[in-house]
């Protein structure tokens, strides 16, 4: 079983040399820390930056240099700033090779719900709907079950959708799952110490073993 750092590390292994990657807030942000030094990757921040660097040194924070999570960041050689319209232009035109984001629910068809819980304060979808509607490749990083112990891998999402038929892969604390083109969560691997039975019990949608 993996903790959130383990999930982030496992996802980092999916990133290939030359990729442009958009990392969502939460576990996806952690992925940046595990990208191999042997490959070259460019991180996009949808508020208008390609080539996101690490946090600045203490005292060097600059209010004009932030990421989509509103955190102060730095640039790297070759970084580019641009406006929001171009940022989503490159997202829509599928120039981002991989999008990694969190989710509350994923369906066996690849639908994703991650922005709204009816009855609770809704903060908004931010850029998530644009990202999931356009990305060529989407990996979801999330816990396999919610705080109430209910599966987040479902036949159909119960929460309002963020996008449909878009998630390609899910990495949870239990394992790695591909969403099959015709539906179903295909077990790609189980993490160390995880039993098939554990995954079966935690997965409500169709599991392909």
């Amino acid at each position: 079983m993996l903790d959130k750092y383990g999930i982030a590390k496992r996802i980092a292994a999916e990133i290939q040399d030359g990729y442009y990657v958009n990392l969502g807030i939460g576990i996806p942000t952690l992925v940046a820390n595990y990208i191999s030094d042997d490959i070259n990757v460019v991180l996009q921040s949808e508020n208008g930056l390609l080539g996101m660097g690490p946090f600045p040194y203490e005292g060097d924070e600059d209010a004009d240099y932030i990421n989509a999570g509103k955190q102060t960041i730095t640039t790297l050689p070759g970084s580019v700033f641009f406006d929001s319209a171009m940022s989503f232009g490159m997202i829509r035109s599928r120039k981002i090779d991989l999008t990694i984001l969190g989710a509350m629910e994923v369906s066996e068809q690849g639908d994703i719900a991650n922005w709204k819980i009816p009855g609770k304060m809704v903060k908004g979808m931010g850029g998530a709907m644009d990202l999931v509607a356009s990305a060529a490749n989407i990996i979801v990083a999330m816990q396999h079950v919610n705080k109430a112990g209910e599966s987040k891998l479902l036949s159909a999402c119960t929460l309002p959708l963020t996008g449909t038929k878009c998630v390609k892969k899910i990495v949870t604390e239990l394992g790695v799952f591909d969403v099959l083109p015709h539906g179903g969560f295909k077990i790609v691997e189980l993490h160390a110490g995880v039993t098939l039975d554990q995954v079966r019990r935690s997965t409500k949608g169709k599991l392909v073993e």
Partner: protein
Amino acid sequence: MVDKSVLNAFEAIRGVSSGMTIAVGGFGLCGIPENLIAALIAENLKELTCISNNAGVDDFGLGLLLGRKQIKKMIASYVGENAEFERQMLSGELEVELVPQGTLATRLMAGGYGLPVVYTPAGVGTEVAEGKEVRTFKFHGVEKEYLMEYAFEPDFALVKAWKGDRMGNLVYRGTAQNFNHAMAMCGKVTIAEVEELVEPGVLDPNFIHTPGIYVHRIFQGENYEKRIEQRTFRSKD
């Protein structure tokens, strides 16, 4: 020289009146027109419809307008970083229209590019699609559904740039560009505040982000706080 410079924020917002729709630049607290927001407060304009990616925090940015109940409706992609916003929304005092961030940016750009509508896949199959025209196009080798979204045509666009010249040419710095450029392009009247106002010819004509033709009034702002929302850093060891 076609001189668009005005003295200050008060002169700049002449004509903005209660009930209007205004686009306000910035992403979070980054790149927001601090002086113009202060002038809207001082003039106590009410019933504003604000198009802005976010709604500020309780004591800064658009949160200041919210606190004084000057905003009737927010059109934004991500809100609720402040308690008063949440209270007004839940009580029904404040109308909120949530728009995907890319759709927001593209609808603003469309206004500036003279495109009456744009088709985007964002929100297809979600509640964002309700009541909207859905149309299938083959693009990038895939048949896919798209939503028709209308261009924004705000009465005023209030933006903030790093530098600008008296002819209205604007240059942004870092990620403070964000929504400011697209908003500047689509305002029926666009007002820009800049950290440094220079004479025409100082800015390199090859590297202007927003050409002055889109900008109607410009002034040099003062006392920028440029507050940081999430101060993240690493230690030097």
